[in-house]
């Protein structure tokens, strides 16, 4: 059996799980939990196996339907893909464990798991595909599932947020499709590697500039970069907490940032003006996001604004284009997935126990919910960049990279945004977990077992996350991912030579 047969499994297994749950999940109450957790566990194990495969054997290429490379659809497994697969499936596994207890509050749990696994199929598909139109199809699978999940509560706010999100995101999709049409008419191919070759031969032209603008708008809408961010602070808090964790943790990254990187670095080829646009958008998101976050009193809404701000860091790091900047950006992407998913799970735990998301109504919950309190403290320190935690290392690398590249202005804004982040999380800790316990909350209980275990393990990853930058682990996890971006349009030759 050829090694590359592992690639389509990432899409197939999630689709299979969704299929089984949708057929028999309605009758057997225990089944959706089991299948959901089992599927994500298998996906996590598979993605960890691929880390090893790519480190030892190089890039794998799978031809769908045995059509040879420039003609058919190909699925590609390279460093960046592996990195994203591990991030997506790691978060998904803990989120699905957490949902076992959390989703008891909602009716029809099986619908939740079906949509959740469909969203996983879409995200894994976006990450593994090497074909432009295929990327669009998987993008839509993930997006449509996420629209339905945002509206899952079907109350006034959920519906309003979901409608706004669907309209904005659909417009983004239209721009992406239009960009793909222009690229196809210019290059007469849909395969990313082939497209990169043709574009390299034909050189820059006005069509490529136009396509770049369309993609920045389209993928920027998916990633919620600042001029296009208006939907995120409504949509992410309205979803059930595990879905907020998925949306903020991995969906905006695999649909927005990964696709931006892949298209601009490996297909179109990065140049100084594109890199400037990315850096400016990143800095704007970073600063505006954090300023909007400080004034919030709704716990989840505050976290959603911080997502915008932290995405800015990732884009800034990747936009710098230096080896250190790209490593910093990707490292921050992974770290942000972990601590933002954890923070959303924490906010869900608080809501589960007390029934409110308003920080002003909480207070002194640390004594009643020690595990939730401690994990929130760890995640807050991570996101604010306090030394031993993972967020500190990645922010440090991005700032050092900005200074090295002689972009002192950007480095200054990055430091400022970090300080403001610290301030807003001190507010969260002070109002929610420290201080006097109100009488109203004297009956509050700690959350059930599965929710605790998911939060504790994610918190442990936050504590030891800095290890990823130690040279051995860096060699097999972060370095291959940043190499893929650094090699630029040479990606095409590498895919054509890849093991089939």
């Amino acid at each position, binding site marked *: 059996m050829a090694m590359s047969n592992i690639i389509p499994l990432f899409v197939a297994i999630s689709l299979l799980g969704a299929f089984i749950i949708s057929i028999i999940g309605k009758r057997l109450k225990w089944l959706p939990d089991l299948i959901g957790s089992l599927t994500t566990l298998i996906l996590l194990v598979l993605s960890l196996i691929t880390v090893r495969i790519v480190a030892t054997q190089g890039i794998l290429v799978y031809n769908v339907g045995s059509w040879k490379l420039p003609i058919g659809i190909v699925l590609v497994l390279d460093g960046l893909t592996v990195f994203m697969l591990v991030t997506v499936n790691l978060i998904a596994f803990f989120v699905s464990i957490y949902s076992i207890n959390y989703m008891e509050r909602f009716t029809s749990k099986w619908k939740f798991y079906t949509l959740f696994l469909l969203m996983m199929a879409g995200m894994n598909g976006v990450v593994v595909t090497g074909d432009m*139109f295929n990327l*669009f*199809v998987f993008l*839509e699978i993930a997006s*449509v599932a996420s*629209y*339905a999940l945002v*509206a899952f509560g*079907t*109350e*006034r*706010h959920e*519906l*309003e*947020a*979901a*409608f*706004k999100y*669907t*309209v904005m995101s*659909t*417009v983004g999709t*239209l721009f992406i*499709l*239009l960009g793909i*049409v222009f690229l*196809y*008419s210019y290059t007469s191919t*849909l395969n990313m590697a082939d497209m990169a070759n043709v574009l390299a031969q034909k050189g820059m032209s006005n069509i490529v500039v136009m396509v770049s603008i369309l993609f920045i708008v389209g993928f920027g809408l998916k990633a919620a970069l600042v001029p296009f961010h208006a939907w995120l*602070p*409504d949509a992410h808090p*309205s979803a059930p907490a595990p879905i907020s964790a998925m949306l903020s943790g991995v969906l905006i990254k695999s649909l927005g940032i990964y696709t931006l990187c892949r298209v601009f670095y490996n297909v179109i080829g990065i140049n100084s003006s594109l890199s400037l646009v990315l850096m400016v958008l990143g800095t704007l998101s970073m600063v505006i996001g954090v300023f909007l976050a400080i*004034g*919030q009193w*709704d716990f989840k*809404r505050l976290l959603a604004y911080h997502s915008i701000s932290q995405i800015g860091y990732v884009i800034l790091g990747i936009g710098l284009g230096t080896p250190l900047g790209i490593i910093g950006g990707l490292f921050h992407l992974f770290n942000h997935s972990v601590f933002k998913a954890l923070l959303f799970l924490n906010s869900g735990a608080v809501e589960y126990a007390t029934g409110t998301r308003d920080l002003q109504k909480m207070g002194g919950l640390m004594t009643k919910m020690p595990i939730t309190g401690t994990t929130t403290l760890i995640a807050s320190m991570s996101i604010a960049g306090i030394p031993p935690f993972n967020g500190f290392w990645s922010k440090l690398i991005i700032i050092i990279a900005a200074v090295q590249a002689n972009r002192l202005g950007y480095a200054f804004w990055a430091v400022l945004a970090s300080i403001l982040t610290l301030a807003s999380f001190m507010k969260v800790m002070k109002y929610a977990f420290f201080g006097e316990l109100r009488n109203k909350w004297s009956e509050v209980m700690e959350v059930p077992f599965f929710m605790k275990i998911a939060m504790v393990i994610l918190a442990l990853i936050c504590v030891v996350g800095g290890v990823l930058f130690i040279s051995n682990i860096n060699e097999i996890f972060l370095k291959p991912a940043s190499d893929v971006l650094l090699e630029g349009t040479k990606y095409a030759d590498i895919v054509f030579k890849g093991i089939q």
Partner: protein
Amino acid sequence: MIIYLLCLMLFCCGLYCILRKRNIIKIILGIIIAEYAVNLFFILVAYRMEGRSPILSSEVEIVNMVDPLPQALVLTSIVIGLATTALLVALAMRIYEKYGTFDITKIKELKG
């Protein structure tokens, strides 16, 4: 050339509808119009003047044929559009049940 401009105008109509209209149903219609404009443009890109259908046969030499790939892709894109539209309409129905109106200026409880 004129046909491409008309296609662009159709797309702009759709975008205008999405951005300026206050009724939820009209916004959904705007999305559909913009979607159709993109699909139409995709088909136009594949069209060749006086081209023939792309069927291989031994007698006729193929000189000028219409590109068949976008037609297959547009089918996919139409189906995706159908899914999005169905979801949007379902959301619109639920919103009407909860708020009793389709006017988006009256449906804004989320802000800040």
